[in-house]
């Protein structure tokens, strides 16, 4: 039954969500994941990035809340993007599963956004916030940012773990709080360097105006490299 000629179904070539080209041969949106512990500032970073980039870049966001739609609702309340550009994925008590072991729901969200409001340049995927071992699958994102904060303990870069060690960008957020929690920023920078070698680290305070600048610059560079990639 239904034994079609393979060429009748060009969309079958999209089995691999990692494939960089759309059906029409153009480059699909760059997908960047934001992971890191709960409360480190992932949603705040996403909001600030949207404000900073949305005038020039077509952006959408996927959130992976653990048990509510809080992150999506925060972004909606603050009107960083129109509602049709924000999608919440339900993760079934296991946020790291949805971004790493079984990425199917997130891929669906990404595809639906592209279909509804595309063509998009950039899709930010925020993880629900888990532990230091949670990283994104390469089948879901092209690059990942790991967000930690100075108040979570200045020994986190030293302890390492896949997020701290391998993320394409490590963000150490809430530097404004360093004096109050006695965090040693230079020590954190040294430890991060030891763990990460040449991979970049950005120290940010989103409490300050324009505080997301270093992250936005990094995203712009990623976008430029992505757009210039092979077709």
């Amino acid at each position, binding site marked *: *039954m*239904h*034994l*079609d000629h*393979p060429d009748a*179904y060009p*969309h*079958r*070539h999209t*089995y*691999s969500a990692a*494939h960089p080209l759309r059906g029409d041969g153009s480059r699909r949106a760059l997908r960047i994941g934001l992971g890191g512990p709960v409360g480190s500032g992932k949603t705040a970073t996403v909001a600030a990035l949207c404000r900073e980039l949305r005038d020039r870049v077509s952006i959408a966001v996927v959130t992976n809340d*653990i*048990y*509510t*739609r809080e992150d999506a609702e925060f972004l909606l309340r603050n009107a960083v993007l129109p509602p049709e550009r924000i999608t919440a994925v*339900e*993760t*079934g*008590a*296991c946020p790291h*599963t*949805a971004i790493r*072991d*079984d*990425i*199917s*729901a997130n*891929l*669906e969200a990404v595809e639906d956004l592209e279909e509804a409001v595309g063509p998009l340049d950039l899709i930010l995927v925020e993880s629900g916030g888990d532990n230091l071992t949670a990283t994104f699958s390469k089948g879901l994102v092209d690059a990942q940012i790991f967000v930690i904060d100075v108040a979570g303990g200045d020994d986190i870069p030293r302890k390492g773990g896949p997020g701290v060690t391998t993320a394409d960008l490590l963000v150490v957020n809430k530097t404004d709080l360093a004096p109050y929690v006695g965090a040693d920023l230079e020590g954190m920078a040294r430890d991060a360097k030891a763990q990460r070698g040449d991979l970049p680290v950005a120290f940010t305070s989103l409490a300050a105006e324009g505080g997301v600048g270093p992250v936005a610059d990094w995203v712009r560079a990623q976008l430029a490299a992505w757009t210039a990639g092979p077709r």
Partner: protein
Amino acid sequence: MAVGEAIPPTASRAALLVLADGRFPAGGHAHSGGAEAAVKAGRVRDAGTLEAFCRGRLHTAGLTAAGLAAAAAAGLDPLALDEAADARTPSPALRAAARRLGRQLTRAVRATWPSPELDALAAARPRGAHQPIVLGLAARAAGLTPLDAAYAAVYESVSGPATAVVRLLGLDPFDATGVLARLAPELDAVAARAADAARGGLDALPAGAAPLLDIMAEVHAAWPVRLFAT
């Protein structure tokens, strides 16, 4: 990724283990099969009540899903089966979930056991066909039998809630696995019954219903805060 790279049907029993594995990346981990609502209502509290819940689900929703999966694996028209699944799923929330899971399973299976039949179904139902039908076509593409497809469906109907209850209640995982082991003979019986029914064609497929599961699924879908999608 060229179609020519497709893995040929294996006719291998081990393929059933791959398909039925809870880690098969097709979205199941985000669903409790009604267990979250049952826990909240106090109906599932421990291993004993989990077993009763799973037994009820197995003989109703599980049997129905297994019949559809076996029929799809036997080569019945997937679109007719998709309508039959709609008719057997009164809860709009569960229909939506079944299609969402069907779409996720389609993605995973098209990458693991590519098949023109599944491509055709995906083209006809881009938002997803009912999950048991996709499961049946997956089994077919993997060289498995209708009975194998029924096994995958019945096992999923109880393993999903059992795993969810371990997370929701902190239930001892050995106790939860013991529940599944004790249900094994019933899983055999229900899978055989479903596969038998599928031999009788579309109109002979089981239509077991669990009204409480349907009602609670609607209630659960309206919760503002929940851990699982269903």
